[in-house]
């Protein structure tokens, strides 16, 4: 067994105790006579085996289990027969979101149009009322004028003392 093959086995199967007895014997025989490979074996053992063997093992925090449990319970609720019934009812009453959005926009537009439209309508009503009032005044003025003219034309009078007094 040459140095290259020995090193390859050292860094994998030999250090990981995956070699058979025969291979193990051959490698150890080589190591006993090859200082370079022996140094390689010691360095490799120290770095890739001993260092990691002493690696600290960490305890998962309690919160991890609580979060997992919480999620599982949520999922169980979602898959329970009662939840299934609620889902069916919801799907029966389901209104697709785009339709809901369109409906909301239409209602909002109607409200806006009504709000904007009302003041203009009021203005028109007031305008009409004003016109009516003006017409009425004109009518009354006309009637008064006619009445006055008639009165003037009929200046003959009745020749009474009361008439004289007032005129």
């Amino acid at each position, binding site marked *: 067994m040459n140095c290259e093959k020995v090193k390859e086995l050292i860094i994998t199967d030999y250090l990981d105790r995956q070699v058979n007895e025969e291979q193990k014997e051959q490698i150890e025989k080589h190591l006993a006579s090859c200082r370079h490979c022996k140094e390689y074996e010691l360095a490799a053992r120290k770095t*890739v085996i001993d*260092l990691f063997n002493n690696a600290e*093992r*960490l305890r998962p925090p309690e919160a991890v289990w609580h979060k997992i449990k919480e999620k599982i319970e949520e999922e*169980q609720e979602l898959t329970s027969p009662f939840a299934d019934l609620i889902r069916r009812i919801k799907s029966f009453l389901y209104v697709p979101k785009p339709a809901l959005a369109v409906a909301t926009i239409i209602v909002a537009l109607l409200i806006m149009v009504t709000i904007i439209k009302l003041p203009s309508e009021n203005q028109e009503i007031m305008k009409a009322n004003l016109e009516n009032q003006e017409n009425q005044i004109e009518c009354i003025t006309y009637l008064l004028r006619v009445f006055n003219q008639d009165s003037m034309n009929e200046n003959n009078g009745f020749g009474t003392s009361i008439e004289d007094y007032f005129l």
Partner: protein
Amino acid sequence: MKDVSDNIIIEASEGSIESFESIYNAYSFFVYNVAFRVVHNIDEAQEVTQEVFLTVYRKLKSFKFKSSFKTWIYRITVNLAINYAKKRAKEQKRTVEYDDKKESNKAIDSIGENIEREQQEKVIATLLESLNPDQRACVVLRSIEGLSYQEIAESLNININTVRSRLKRARETLLVLRKEMVQNEL
């Protein structure tokens, strides 16, 4: 690592939280430690651990007792951790938060031992960081978790010779880097 009985697995698959907690108690150390060593970050290790157990819970009903439950969990863990590490490797490099957030299950050591342990953990973290996620997973499963080559092959769904070659390349990288680190320390 203690194993769980088939009954526990069946009960958990039927929705028993208590039985699922037994599964969690049996495997959470392994899952969390593999996740931490592969993703190299405490918060992400917690996320991976949660994801692993939620995946296990969701897939429990489809678990056929043809293969080992332990290997099945190993596979889910390693796959999720490697995917997470690969995804994160594309993003900016993160610092190891070991110093701030570690929760050791061991008794409080003396100050001297603590310093030595922390230095050792930094060396391990630096060495593991130099490997790609696939190589890192092999080293963690073999050198920290003590899985056999066969178990690693089954967990990663690869050939046993691929396990051997990944370990060889990874360890050669580690030896070179460690030598450089020692020379820099001197």
